[in-house]
Every structure is written in structure tokens, then in C-alpha cells.
């Protein structure tokens, strides 16, 4: 009963503290929302993009002559990029020459300069001519210039394909004993152009997401899940240490010594405090799971696997917090413990980089040297729809680590306060 009294008193203290409430509920939801807002811009339902428009400045140096006639490939490329369908992707302006276009990028007035060479039309029409369009880009950008490059490549592949078609047709005619006349190449290129107009390359692909949904059904929600899992683990560990800090507070304020003079044994008092931390984390995790399900529509998985993952997380976080606090002497030292140690171990545990694609494989192994890494793995398995068997190994590791940390912490506290 005395254990419950001590735990209840600590719980009241925690839930009356605005600082604790912010760190328990406000900060994880705020940060997850912030990152969701950031990366949510990349994809919306239907696969359309919500990126800022890429500012493209074009210098059209393309020249025509009597051979090319009125055909102007450079102008066709500009018209293609100015198409209404691309208005959300690129913003086109014109520059009189290459120097001005480059200068616009250097001055950050444009993200990309597109320099169309003087022989562009000739290369598009003449069999043996080649040409390269220059993309001069702001080196800090990747996505916008990538989109422009794709668009220009897509356009130019039409011309290249038509030239290939003409060349292959000429070769086939000559190989098979027929006579190639000058109009043949033009005819083949025309046939190829007609094919391009009537076909869609995208229609040749059936794109699906790893969850099995067709891409049209995929939204940015998928990104919030690992981000929220990372925030949940970080702030549960934070509160584990913060809750255990009450022992140091009471020691400094003298109330702990007074408590030890009561009939309650020292062990009971410490047990009550640890129970308070455990219950705090259970409430925190439950609220965060429910809130994130409501706000971000996260499906955390089946009840049993997610319960196992949360159980492991809470045991490990309680033990970790108790151990950390047992190693410090005063509340003045709690700053670096809370801010420093938890940030570093969280970083190594993969909480800060969770959701970033193509992370080196070694980082996954490093993550599993930290309890946070195991907790994150358990939650991700549950999020992915894993069964209890899939999660149980992580849970067992977390519980074992939690008990180990707890025993170390308890031993240090007992030495300090009891003996």
C-alpha cells in the first residue's frame, strides 16, 4: 500500500508539471507533425507533387537554316516546357544569351538554366549530327533540376527515337536489297512521331507500393509512421529519466531523508518511485498511440504485437532512466543526462534518421547496440503488420535490458540511500 502511495504522489507531481506534460505529449506530437508537414509536401493522394516550382531560365541559341526550313526544335522544347500541364512544376523565363542564363542561376534568380545549343534543330533532323542541351543548376538543389532533366530527356527521346527509327529503316532497306530514297527517313521519323503521340510509357508500368497498394492510393501518411515511432521512443525514454529524477529532487529538498524516517522501508519507497515512473510511461505511451491514431491516422498494428512492443519499450525506458539517474549527484547534472545522453543514444539508435531512405546498412547494426534501436525495431515490425512472433525477440531483448539497467540503478541507489 505504501508503495502505491509513493507512486501516486509522484504521479501527481508529474501530471501537475507543465514541463513534464509538454515533454510527454506536446513535444512528440508537435515534432512528428512538423516533420509530417515537411515531408508530406512530397506526395499527395493521386501521386501529384506539392514541391515548390523550379525556376528555369532558358537561353535558346538554336539556329535554323535552309536545310531545316521552318522546323524549330528549340522552340518546340520551350513550348513543351511551357505546357499548362507542367505549370505546377516549372516556371519558365527567357534569357537573351548563355551568360545571362548562367548569371541568373549564380544570382539565385533561377534554379536551373537550360542552354539550347545552336545546332539543336540540325541535330534533331540530320542523321549524323548530335547535340547536347546544357542544364546549369544550383548545386544545393536535387529534386527540381532532376525533374527538369527528366522532362527535357523525355522530350528529346522523341527526337532521338525518330532518328533511330529512320536509321534502322534505312539500314533494313539496304540490307534487304531494296532502294532507300530520301523520303524514307522522313517517313520513318513521321511514323515514329505518330506512335509517340498515341502511346504512353507510363501505361506500360504497373506501379505498386510495398504495402501492395496501387500508387494512386499511396499518400504521405506512410511517412509519418516511422517518424512518429521515433518520436514515441525518444520521448518515452526522456520521461523515463525525467521521472526517475524525482528521487534526486527529493534528496536535495530533504524530503527523501524524512521519508526514510517513516515506517516505510527504504526499499518500498524506491519501489514506489519506480512504479510511478512505470505508470507514467504507460499513460504517456497510451495517449501518444491514441492521439497519433486520431491525428495522423496511424495504424500501429495488431493489438498483441503493438502491446508487446510498448511493454518492451516501457520496461527498457524505466530501467534506463533509473540507471542514468542513479549515476548523477544533483539536479544540476540532469540537464546533460536528459539532453545529452538521450540525444546521443537516440541518434545512434536511429531515432533521428528514421524514415530517411538509403541509409548505410551499418547504421542498422549500430542502432541495435542501443535499447532505443530495439524499441524502434519492435514498433516498426508492429507497424508493418508483423505478428507477435515477429515482435517477441525485440520485446525480450528490451525487457532483459530494462531489468539489467534497473538492477544496476537499484544497486547504486541502495548504496547511496540505504547503506
Amino acid at each position, binding site marked *: 500500500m505504501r508503495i502505491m502511495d509513493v507512486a501516486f504522489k509522484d504521479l501527481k507531481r508529474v501530471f501537475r508539471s507543465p514541463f513534464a506534460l509538454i515533454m510527454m505529449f506536446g513535444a512528440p506530437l508537435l515534432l512528428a507533425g512538423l516533420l509530417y508537414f515537411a515531408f508530406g509536401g512530397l506526395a499527395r493522394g493521386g501521386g501529384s507533387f506539392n514541391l515548390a516550382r523550379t525556376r528555369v531560365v532558358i537561353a535558346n541559341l538554336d539556329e535554323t537554316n535552309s536545310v531545316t526550313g521552318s522546323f524549330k526544335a528549340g522552340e518546340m522544347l520551350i513550348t513543351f516546357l511551357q505546357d499548362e500541364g507542367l505549370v505546377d512544376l516549372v516556371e519558365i523565363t527567357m534569357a537573351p544569351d548563355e551568360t545571362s542564363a548562367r548569371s541568373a542561376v549564380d544570382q539565385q534568380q533561377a534554379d536551373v538554366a537550360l542552354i539550347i545549343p545552336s545546332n539543336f534543330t540540325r541535330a534533331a533532323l540530320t542523321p549524323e549530327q548530335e547535340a547536347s542541351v546544357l542544364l546549369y543548376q544550383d548545386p544545393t538543389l536535387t529534386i527540381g533540376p532532376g525533374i527538369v532533366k527528366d522532362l527535357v530527356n523525355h522530350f528529346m527521346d522523341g527526337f532521338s527515337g525518330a532518328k533511330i527509327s529512320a536509321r534502322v529503316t534505312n539500314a533494313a532497306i539496304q540490307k534487304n536489297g531494296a532502294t532507300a530514297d530520301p523520303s524514307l527517313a522522313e517517313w520513318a521519323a513521321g511514323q515514329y512521331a505518330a506512335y509517340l503521340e498515341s502511346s504512353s510509357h507510363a501505361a506500360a508500368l504497373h506501379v505498386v507500393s510495398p504495402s501492395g497498394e496501387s500508387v494512386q492510393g499511396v499518400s504521405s501518411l506512410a511517412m509519418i509512421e516511422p517518424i512518429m515511432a521515433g518520436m514515441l521512443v525518444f520521448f518515452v525514454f526522456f520521461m523515463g529519466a525525467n521521472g526517475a529524477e524525482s528521487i534526486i529532487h527529493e534528496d536535495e529538498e530533504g524530503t527523501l531523508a524524512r521519508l526514510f524516517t517513516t515506517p516505510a522501508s527504504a526499499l518500498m519507497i524506491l519501489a514506489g518511485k519506480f512504479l510511478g515512473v512505470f505508470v507514467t510511461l504507460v499513460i504517456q505511451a497510451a495517449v501518444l498511440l491514441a492521439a497519433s491514431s486520431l491525428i495522423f491516422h496511424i495504424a500501429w498494428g495488431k493489438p498483441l504485437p503493438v502491446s508487446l512492443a510498448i511493454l518492451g519499450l516501457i520496461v527498457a525506458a524505466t530501467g534506463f532512466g533509473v540507471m542514468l539517474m542513479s549515476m548523477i549527484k544533483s539536479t544540476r547534472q540532469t540537464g*546533460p543526462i536528459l539532453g545529452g545522453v538521450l540525444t546521443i543514444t537516440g541518434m545512434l539508435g536511429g531515432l533521428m534518421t528514421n524514415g530517411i531512405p538509403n541509409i548505410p546498412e551499418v547504421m542498422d547494426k549500430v542502432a541495435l547496440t542501443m535499447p532505443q534501436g530495439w524499441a524502434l525495431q519492435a514498433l516498426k515490425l508492429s507497424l508493418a503488420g508483423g505478428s507477435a512472433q515477429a515482435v517477441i525477440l525485440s520485446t525480450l531483448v528490451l525487457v532483459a535490458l530494462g531489468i539489467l539497467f534497473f538492477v544496476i540503478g537499484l544497486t547504486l541507489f541502495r548504496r547511496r540511500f540505504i547503506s
Partner: protein
Amino acid sequence: MRILVLAYKDLLQILKDWKSGLFLLVMPILFTLFFGFIFGGSSNSKPEVDPRLPVGVINRDGGSLASSLEKLLEDSEVIRPVVLDGQEAEQVNQMVEDGDLAAVVTIPNGYTTQLLADQPLMLEVLVTTSQPAGQTTSRAIETVTGRLLGAVEAAHIAINAVESRNGPMDAPVRQPILEDNLAQAISAWEEPALTVVVEKATGEALQDPEAISLSGFAQASSGMMVQFSIFGLITSAMVLVLERKSGTLQRLMSSPIRQMEVIAGHVVAMFLVIFTQQLILVLLGQFVFGVNYLRQPFAILLMIATLALWAASLGLLISAISRKEDQVITLSLIAMFIFAALGGAWFPLEVAGKAFAAIGHMLPTAWAMDGFQNILMRGLGFQSVLMPAGILLAYALGFFGVAIWRFRFE
């Protein structure tokens, strides 16, 4: 003079505290290493490993066009095919989700036959299109598929031309000619007539493009400098809060020193702490991580001075509104997370949504990142940091004004 004495006292107090070293130097160095490694390491030159995005290929067809598709994928500048065996094919969802593969292309059985019969089967592409790598991969696969389909069409056009001149051919005669046409067309796509050449702007460093830092550390080093200029405030702001809590601030008022001198003394100390931190991180960035800060030393000096001024004004504000030590930690942590994340210290604002990028640029941290990147990545000169530095200075004055307004000595 009293201001300097106070600042000196604060500096001694901060430097004697081992925690200062942790927040000011150890953590930013560790984070720079960590993020620099994740975002591509230190090499400015062409990496030894293939940097193209890995795309798994499951070939259930085995025909000539499936091989041609693999060849075209191999020729891509963006993606590299990784042929998956049967066992690996069962784990493709996990491999894409874990980022081991950017996508997986499955070539269905009968793909070659159907395509040659002008009844193409669809390729199945497993990809996470909500991520930039997934979008890039998806577009690259679309380009490659377009080239393959174009080659098939070119082969058909050519054989139609032959037939229009020589008359219809029987299937045994027609097939080898079609395959020969196809081989020529696919081979021609190795060197298309019209290409795109990408050149990254090097600004004023045009004469020496090597001076530009485009490694993963260019973003990580400057980003962590900005982030930890805020986190480093914990110990500095704590000094003021403890002085207020212990009554030292009030006792100081009984001495001839004026209130503004007390505040100025603390601000000078905070400024010197952050400025020194930034200076050390710049030197570490230059000589350990290979980020060329010293290409424009005066511009970098101006940036770190104005960043330190803004950080000091933020530190004063935090200490002005905090009553207890834990409030300093909470406010510093929250300020660090918000200013760093929104300002582009963790990831370039380009990858964020339109609204996020716009909001981010209302924060001083985004301008600090702009200033650093103008020098490090864009190769620009001293003039390019005047605007970011000016904005940082304006923010510093604004924060300082609010801090003075909220400051209490009791």
C-alpha cells in the same frame, strides 16, 4: 569595463563546467560525423562505389527483350539493376521498405513474345513513390521502358518499310530481320543523338571548381553548426537562471553596476561562447571533414559572428522567461528542434513541401544555412552573405528587444 568583468566571470563559470564541452563541441562533432556519413560521406570526387540507385530485377521472362531491358537499365545514369534470385524475390517488399533497394522491376513471363506481337504486358514496379528516391527511380524506369518500347516500334516501322517495297514476308524470313532491326535500335539507344549535360554552378569559384564542397559533410557540418549554436546555449542560459534563483542578480543591483551592464555582460559571454564554438567547428569542418570554409574566410567570419549574436539574443530570451533549470533545458531543446528542422539544418528545405519551405525561410536559421551554402556549395563570394547576415542581425535585435522587455532581476 564592468561588462567585460561580468562576461569574464560567466566565461570562467561556463568553461569550468564539463557539460559545456559536451553541448558545445562533442555533440555537434558526433552529429556532423553521423549526418555527414548518412548523406554521402566526404568525397567530392567520383565515388569508388556505384552511386546509382539499386533496382532489383526479377526476370520471369528470359526472352531477348527482357535481356534488352536489363541492358538499358544498366546503361541508365540514375539506376543500376540488381538481378534477384528466387529466394530474394520473396523478400522484395521488405527490401524496398528498408531502403536496400530503391525499387523492384518484375518482368512477367511472356513479356518478349507479347511485346513483339504488339500486345505488350505491363512491367510491375514496386516502389515507394512518397520518397524522393522512389520518385526518381520511377521516372528513370519509365524512361528506360519508353526507350525499349520505342526500339520495338522502330523495328516494326523498319520491317513495314521493307515489306512495302519487297512485298509481304513469311514469318521465318520476317523474324530474323525484325530481331536484327531490334538489336540495332537498342544498340542505338546507348548513344542517343540528343542528350542532356548537367553542370553544377560554381559561382565565383569557376577557376577552381574543386574549391566547392558538395560532399555530405557540406550540409551536415553547416547544419550542425546552426543547430548546436542553439543547443550550446543551455549552460550559458543556465548561469543567468541560477543567478536569479540564488539571488545573485538582486545582490548585484546593490553594487554600482547598472541593470543594462549586467545584461550586457551576460550577453557578451554568450556571444563569445557561441562564436568560439562556431570558430572551432569551422576549423574542424575545414581540416577534418574537408568542407572548404576558408575559401571565403571573411564571409564565414561575418556569418558566424551574426549567427552567434542571434543565438546569444535567443539565449537571453530563454533565460529571461525561464524560472527553473528544467525550463532552460525544455526551451533550448524545443527551440533547437524547431529552428533546426524548419530552417533546413537537418535536410535541405528543397525536399520539404511548398508551404514548409516558405515558413522555413521566415526563420533566421534558414538564412544562416543560405549564407553558409552560398560560400560552401554555390561558390559565391563575400557579397552573397550580406543579405543572410543582415537578416540574422535584424533577428538578433528583435529577440534582444523582447528579452529585455521580459527580463526580471528577481
